[in-house]
């Protein structure tokens, strides 16, 4: 064997070794995430909605996957209970706290106390200056996409019934503001005043009767073109009301991607026009990854967006299925 060949082999071997070690390094950094011996407190305002439940589960499953211990707290939609749980949680001194949704005005002083106690705070879908990272969907995108889909389906003109009961919830504010911004380019699309108010609980029933009343008030076909809500539970009631009133020219639009609504959009006869489907389970998991990275001393950005998918009448059959499969896998109908 000549020297050159020897050298070549040597170089190849070295290169191979280097490549292997590089792969090993990158593999290690992916596997490096670990929460072994760590306790992570998780506080959610409620889990009665599909989105909330899936995100809550995603957080818990991921913490366990990474070998950590979860202290999981569901406040059952009671502010008092969530505050009491957070207060006790601070005393428990977990390695990190992940907080999921709730009333920001109520929460902020307590989130501040979490930071004052030296506990790293991460949030899911809750923009607050006290969090190290907020993991959420890109609600700016979602808001614009669903609004544009609606305008396109309406042919650029007509009246919209808008549910605006939760403007105080940050993600709803963004989506509503995006709707308004899109409509500035389409002056012939008008929001019917006064706006409707979605409520919790009895969201579906209340939306059903609100929309029925409005359709009765404007009986001519075509006088209402669409119904919009910043989440998709009012959309269920609205869709049922439109269909019950036989006003199939009206289409409904919402955000979140509850399996029930995705099925409606997939049904060509249903009045559900489109829904922006988020990946709440992934969002929950990602927030845990961010916490794990932070605890391992890595840098974490102030927010992380998990992609969402606009499901409309055209793409529903193809794009909706993966979401329904995920829901079925999680045992949620």
């Amino acid at each position, binding site marked *: 064997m000549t020297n050159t060949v020897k050298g070549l082999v040597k170089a190849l071997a070295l290169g191979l070794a280097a490549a292997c070690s590089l792969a090993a390094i990158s593999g290690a950094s992916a596997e490096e995430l670990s929460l072994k011996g760590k306790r992570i407190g998780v506080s959610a305002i409620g889990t009665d909605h599909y989105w909330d439940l899936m995100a809550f589960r995603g957080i818990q499953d991921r913490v366990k996957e990474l070998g950590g*211990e979860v*202290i*999981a*707290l*569901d*406040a*059952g*939609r*009671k*502010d*008092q*209970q969530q*505050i*009491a*749980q957070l*207060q*006790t*949680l601070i*005393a*428990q001194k977990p390695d990190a706290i992940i907080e999921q949704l709730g*009333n920001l*005005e*109520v929460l*902020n*002083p307590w989130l501040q106390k979490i930071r004052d106690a030296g506990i790293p705070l991460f949030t899911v879908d809750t923009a607050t200056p006290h969090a190290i990272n907020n993991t959420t969907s890109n609600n700016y995108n979602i808001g614009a996409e669903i609004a544009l889909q609606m305008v396109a389906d309406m042919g650029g003109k007509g009246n919209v019934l808008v549910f605006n*009961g939760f403007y*105080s919830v940050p993600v709803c504010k963004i989506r509503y503001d995006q709707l308004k911004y899109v409509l500035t380019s389409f002056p012939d699309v008008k929001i019917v005043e006064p706006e409707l*108010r979605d*409520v919790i609980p009895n969201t579906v029933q209340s939306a059903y009767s609100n929309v029925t009343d409005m359709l009765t008030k404007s009986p001519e076909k075509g006088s209402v073109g669409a119904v919009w809500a910043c989440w998709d539970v009012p959309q269920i009631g609205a869709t049922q009301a439109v269909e019950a009133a036989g006003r199939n020219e009206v289409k409904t639009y919402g955000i979140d991607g509850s399996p029930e609504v995705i099925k409606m959009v997939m049904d060509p006869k249903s009045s559900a026009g489109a829904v922006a489907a988020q990946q709440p389970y992934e969002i929950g998991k990602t927030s845990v990854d961010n916490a794990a990275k932070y605890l391992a001393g890595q840098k974490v950005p102030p927010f992380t967006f998990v992609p969402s998918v606009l499901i409309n009448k055209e793409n529903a059959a193809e794009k909706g299925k993966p979401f329904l499969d995920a829901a079925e896998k999680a045992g949620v109908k």
Partner: protein
Amino acid sequence: MSATVLHTEVGVSHEKQAAAKSAGRRFGALVVRLGAIAAFAAIMAYFVIFAPGFTSTFNLINVVEQSAILGVLAYGMTAVIIGGGSDVTEGGIDLSIAANMGLCAAVYATLLSMGYGDFLSVLAAIAVGMAVGALNAIAVVGLGILPLLATLAVLNVAAGMELTLTQNTVVGASSPLLGLLVSGSFLGISALAWALIVFSAITIAVIHGTAFGLRLYAVGGHPEAARAAGLSVPFYVSFTYVLSGFCAAVASILTVSRLSASTPGSGELLLSVLAAALLGTVFSRRFVPTMGGTLLSVLFIGLLANGFQLLNVSSYWVNGVQGALILLVVAITSFARGSEGSR
């Protein structure tokens, strides 16, 4: 003659039987009551041994703080049950108390956000609370409607008014008084915990230390006898409903301080308030509601949630255990009533 003898003998044996039966039931009730208290004690002992950090002063003060709002409301409910009698269907009950607190909180927070000072806003909240209490009193005492139904109707009135006022939104609030309640502390005990301690002391002193309190028990326990003794039953019963409204107003201020806002959904507290007032009867030998008993059960409910969290047991269990205990206590109470009834 033989007939009379026979008759008396039958009568005596019947009486003996009844007495024995009643004594047996009373004994049974005693056993079950002590059993319930033992269960409470066992749960606490378990927490003390196994829940990390349960007995730390910091944690215990936290629990007192967390119990303040429920405690103040439960005192109002207890007063109504004492004055109206503890029959679950026909006796005194104030189902509107939690909704009333929501309304008062909404009034207080709205006035503060409109720029009225603490003094006026607190006064308005208390006036609204007592007015709702007075409405209950008119419905129950004046119109003679069953308290269960009357206060259910007023619950809806109060909840509706709160919705109208706030449009189902969160009304943020801040003021010097709220600041003091949130961050103030004295002797290492936070202001909210002090609020419960002081309010408890006053209530217990008034209801269990004065002739007025004694008369209130007389009115609730034996209204006919109280009337015969010259007590104005309507006055005392009305008083309890107005007091309950006052408690709702005080609790509303504590709520706004804790949540930095008035929020929808105060009505959710009703079940816990009822639970506290009913569970409290187990600490009384005659199964009557007492303020001390109510305080103990309020703290018990708070410690239950706290202990479960420290043990990392799912919070869903708290409701289940609370419900089971209520069922147990209500069963014991009706058991004890049964023995009184057969007497």
